[in-house]
Every structure is written in C-alpha cells, then in structure tokens.
C-alpha cells in the first residue's frame, strides 16, 4: 500500500515543479533572475505584483478575461440545457448526425478560424467587445456542454418526467423546479468545463480584441516585447492567471471525477 502511493506523490511532484518555479520567479528581482541560479528568492520582493495591481493595463487584462469567460459560461450552459434534454429524451430526424456535427466543432483547429472570425466579427461591428470573444468561444464550449449535460440527463429516469406531467406540471415549471435540481452536479460540471476552456483559450481571444476587451494574454505578450525581458513581471502575471482556475476547481472538487467522465460511467 505504501509503495503504491509513491506513484501519485511522484506524479504530483512533477506537476508542481514548474508551477513552483513560476511562483518563485515572481518573487525575485530582475537582477537576481539574470544574475544566475537560485532555488529560493534571495531578496524577496513584491514589486512585480505591485506593478500589476497598480497599472490599469495589467489589471484590466484580468478583469476583461473574467468578464468574457463569465458571459461565455452562462450563455453556453443556457443554450445547451434544452438541447441536451432533447438528445437525452427524444429520437428525432437527424439526431445522431446533428450530435456528431456539434462534436466536429470541438475538432476544428482554432488556428483555422482565427482570420475568418476576425472578418466575421468585424463585419457585424462586434470586434473588440466582450460579446465577440464570448460568442466565439461558444464554438467549442456549447458542443462540450451538450455532451456533458446529455450524459448526466440520461442518468435521470424518464419516469420522473412522466410523473410530473401526470401531476399537472407544465414543461417549463417541471424543468426548472424538478429537473434542474436533479442534475445540479451536471450543470456545475458543464459550467466548470466551459469556464476552463474559455479561460485557457488565447488565440481567438487575442485575435478578436484590440484595446477595450484585451485579455490578459495579450497584455502579457505585448509587455514582454515592449519592455524587454522582464521575467519577474511575466512570472507574476502568470502566477495570477492560475488563481481563478484554482478557486473554481476547489468548488467542484467533489464532482471532478464524475464530471470528467462526462456522466457516462
């Protein structure tokens, strides 16, 4: 038993090493970083974080990212709920083909869509808005949300629906007051995945924004190129991008295992 738990410990240690290095770097001065190797920060400094929290271009990068991620998550889950219900409860013309077509959008390389998306959202005057990024990210998040929710809904017996209708519930009332509470975990997991994939995607987010809705990634690359090689600042900015994800994952920790199986186990 002891020997067996060594494998997860080693694996987690491997995962934590680069993260530790990023965090350690963020507390070092640029001088210390460039002067050579040190395992721990020798002259501990918060200067890098102070820069980020006092410069509007920096902290607005985070706020922008959080805004479009939130819009995307709400939008994706809301449109996916009825669709997932339809796929889990009914057979209809072309259902299998439609389901696969939805999934194919998860397979399209983001690089393929970068330029057409830029043209599409420019032509409808949404370029450089939160909505543009949120809408663009639904391309891969909506299919995923449908997939996850359908898995969870299939686990709910159909008798629940029928009993509710016999009791005189209308469909919307049944869906909101009875069905939704039953798939709470599924909604949480779907929202988590939408948050995750919207938060980590940067190519489309960068392509679709310029000034107003600029995500943190764009701020990071632009600063890296204009202000030379400020590794400490870059490390601090990177460290701060880990925090929202860590908070969100802590909330869904008890559902993670099941959620990753898309409810299909």
């Amino acid at each position, binding site marked *: 038993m002891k020997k067996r*738990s060594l*494998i*997860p410990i080693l*694996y*987690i240690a491997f*995962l934590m*090493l*680069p*993260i530790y*290095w*990023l965090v350690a770097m963020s507390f070092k001065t640029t001088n210390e970083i460039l002067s*050579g*190797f040190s395992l721990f920060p020798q002259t501990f400094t918060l200067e890098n974080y102070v820069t980020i929290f006092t410069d509007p271009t920096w902290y607005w990068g985070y706020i922008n990212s959080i805004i479009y991620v939130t819009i995307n998550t709400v939008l994706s889950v809301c*449109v996916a709920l*009825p*669709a997932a*219900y*339809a796929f889990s*409860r009914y057979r*209809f*013309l072309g259902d299998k083909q*439609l389901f*696969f077509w*939805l999934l*194919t*959008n998860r*397979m*399209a*390389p*983001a*690089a*393929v*869509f970068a*330029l*057409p998306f830029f043209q*599409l959202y420019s032509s409808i005057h949404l370029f450089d808005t939160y909505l543009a990024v949120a809408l663009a990210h*639904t*391309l891969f998040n909506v*299919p995923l949300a449908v997939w996850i929710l359908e898995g969870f809904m299939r686990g709910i017996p*159909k008798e629940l629906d029928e009993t509710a209708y016999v009791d005189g519930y209308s469909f919307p009332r049944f869906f909101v007051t009875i069905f939704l509470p039953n798939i709470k975990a599924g909604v949480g997991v779907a929202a988590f995945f939408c948050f*995750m994939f919207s938060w*980590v995607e940067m190519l489309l987010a960068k392509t679709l924004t310029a000034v107003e809705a600029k995500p943190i*990634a764009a701020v990071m690359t632009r600063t890296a190129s204009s202000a030379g090689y400020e*590794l400490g600042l*870059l490390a601090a*900015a*990177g460290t701060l991008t*880990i925090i929202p*994800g*860590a908070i*969100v*994952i802590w909330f869904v*920790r008890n559902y*993670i*295992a*099941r959620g*990753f*199986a898309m409810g*299909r*186990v």
Partner: protein
Amino acid sequence: MRTENQKAWFFVLPVLALVAFNALVPMMTVVNYSVQETFGNNQFFWEGLGWFEQILRSDRFQAALGRQFLFTFLILLIEVPLGIIVALSMPRKGFWVPVCLVLMALPMLIPWNVVGSMWNIFTLPKIGLMGYFLNDVLGINYDMTQQPLSAWITVIVMDVWHWTSLVVLLCYAGLVSIPDAYYQAAKIDGASPWSVFRYIQLPKMKTVLTIAVLLRFMDSFNIYTEPFVLTGGGPGNSTTLLSIDLVKIALGQFDLGPAAAMSLIYFAITLLVSWVFYTLMTKDDAQ
C-alpha cells in the same frame, strides 16, 4: 426508451443557430478563399482546386503533417499508459482524494500561453530549474533554442505535464464506479493483480479511455499556443507543427488561398480520424 418526437428540434434550435453562425460562416469564408487567388485590393480570381494540389504536393506541408502525427503519436503513447498507472495507484477514499484531484487538475486550468511561458522560464539554461539541473548538475548538454532534439523533448514533456491529468481523472472516474463486490469475488477466486486489471478494471475503463483518447487526439492535433510560445516552431522548423505552420502562412505571409486550402485539408484529416474513434465509441455504447 427514447420516444420519437420531431418537436425536439425546437429544443435544439438555439444551439443550432449559435454553432451554425460560428461554424458555417467562417467555414464558408475559408472555402471561398481556398478556390481563389488574390493580389490584394480585394480583387479575386478563380483558382479552382489548384491550391489543394499545391499544398498536398508541397514538401513543407508533408513535413509539418509528419511532425504533427509524430507528436500526437508520442504524447498518446506516453500519456495514456502513464494516466492509467497513476489512476490505478490513487487511493479510492479518504481525505487525500479531493486534494490529489485538485492538484492534478491544476495544470489544465492554466492559460495556454502561460503554460508556454512557464516552461520557457523553467527550461532556460543557467537560470531555469530544469535547464540548470540538466546542464550544470548532470552535465547534459541541453539547450532548447539550439538543439532540435532538446526542443522536441521539452515540447513532449510539457504536453505530458499539461494533459496526462485528463487521462488520470477519466480513468479514475471509471475505477471508482466499480463495486467492491467485484474485487471481493476476485480475491476469493485468487485472481492475480494482472487478471484483476485485465478482466475487471480495464473493461470498466473502456468507455472513459475512448473519450480520453478522442479528446487527447483532437486537442494535441490542434495544438498551437503552447509550442508556439515555448519554441516559436524552432530551432529551424523542427517543432513547427501543423497549426503553427498554418498561422505562419495565413497571418505571417498573408497567403490566404494556400492557407485556406491547408485549413480544409487539416480539418478533414482531424475529422476523419476523430470519426473513426467516435464510431468505435458509439458501437460500444450500443452493445
């Protein structure tokens, strides 16, 4: 089971409208570019299938495609077995389970450009932890910006670091759904650990493993941001994977016709391989 009801289409309509807007319009733009030649000034000339032929015959595309398949093959070869091993050795219950799961999922929640920067900082010779350790402690000559082999190893290790947890979490989800009675029965029969794995654990993980392989295939085949930030495709073209090459042609050289033709070929290959996985997966569901 499921009842026949054509009104279900109304439920699917919002999703359909949203995804069609996001997928069909850009896709038609790409198709449009792929059959035309432009010299700027918004003037376009019919080109037919010329770009497709040119791309398929070009050494550059074939080399990038080869690198892409090698990359995807290698990371699947490492991540799937490693993920299974870690999932099998995880505790099933107790205080440490959520802690382990959260720590393991952490790399997946880091923005992709930060993953690239992070590994860049981590592997710098003299300054980075891994670069310093390999060069100055072990005496291995390692420099990602000069040696293609070092660059490849770094990109692969980065992907293993980033995504093995997805396989672990999926397999773990499959494992915890096995009732204790199965293990007790195996113990009474005196089954070896290997036969427990082969006849109890592996069949239970089959569905989730297919999902894992499918997701890992799609995402690794489309990978762009992490290797781009880490190596920029270099040294030379050694780590220029398909997406990196595509963006170079489309946004770097602004050759829209060839880039669009390449996009469609690229998408078709992803689609074909994913479809094979998907059919295998749903065939199992039906049984």
